[in-house]
């Protein structure tokens, strides 16, 4: 993750060759999230993913209510 906007972070990630030396590839990536993750047990990580996914879905629904659906997949994603 970068300190910039999510879109910028995504573009930067896309431009990185993961095979390049770590000092270059690791720029702008907040590894404290990785360190936090590695403190959890594997099962705790999976449960945290479920929780985070629930939050993501809640925010997506709120965004859709506010701005309408912009992604075709988001309209079909509801169970």
């Amino acid at each position: 993750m970068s300190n910039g906007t999510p879109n910028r972070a995504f573009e930067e990630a896309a431009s990185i060759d993961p095979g390049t030396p770590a000092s270059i590839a690791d720029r702008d990536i907040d590894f404290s999230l990785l360190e936090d993750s590695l403190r959890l047990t594997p099962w705790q990580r999976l449960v945290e993913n479920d929780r985070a996914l629930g939050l993501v879905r809640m925010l997506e629904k709120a965004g859709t209510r506010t701005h309408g659906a912009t992604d075709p997949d988001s309209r079909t994603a509801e169970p």
Partner: protein
Amino acid sequence: MEQLTQILERLNRERVEFVLVGGLAGVFHGVPLVTRDVDVCLPFTEQNLFRLERALDGLNPVHRQTPQRLAFKVADDFPRGLKNLYLRTDLGVLDCLGEISGVGDYLAVRGRSEPAELPVGTVHILSLSALIDAKAALDRTQDKLALIHLRRIQQARS
């Protein structure tokens, strides 16, 4: 609400033979990126597909890449030679893959997996090195960040 861990629990309960791969396997190893689906590699045998169907019973599984969202049903006329199933269930997305790029078919994937004792039972999970090979082989933009994290984890373990 999506509960990807419940999908794992159901697969285990019905003794579906599978290996957890993809983003959730990355989360297992420590990747701090939220993933939205469960990717598993499994043998597409008739017995295993019937077990998969039982595991998803009541979750309204549909083929999410068909325009009509066809219901997932393993009947006698179920197509033979299938390699992948892309499903949506009430608990979340479940992608079933017959082989994994960079690793190989189910047997190769199983050979590079490790059993993990989880509250939902024993789950075979693609090893860290195999997951790195798989992500590197895909060379997709969406995987590059995960790949960087996976390599960091590998460094930390060595």
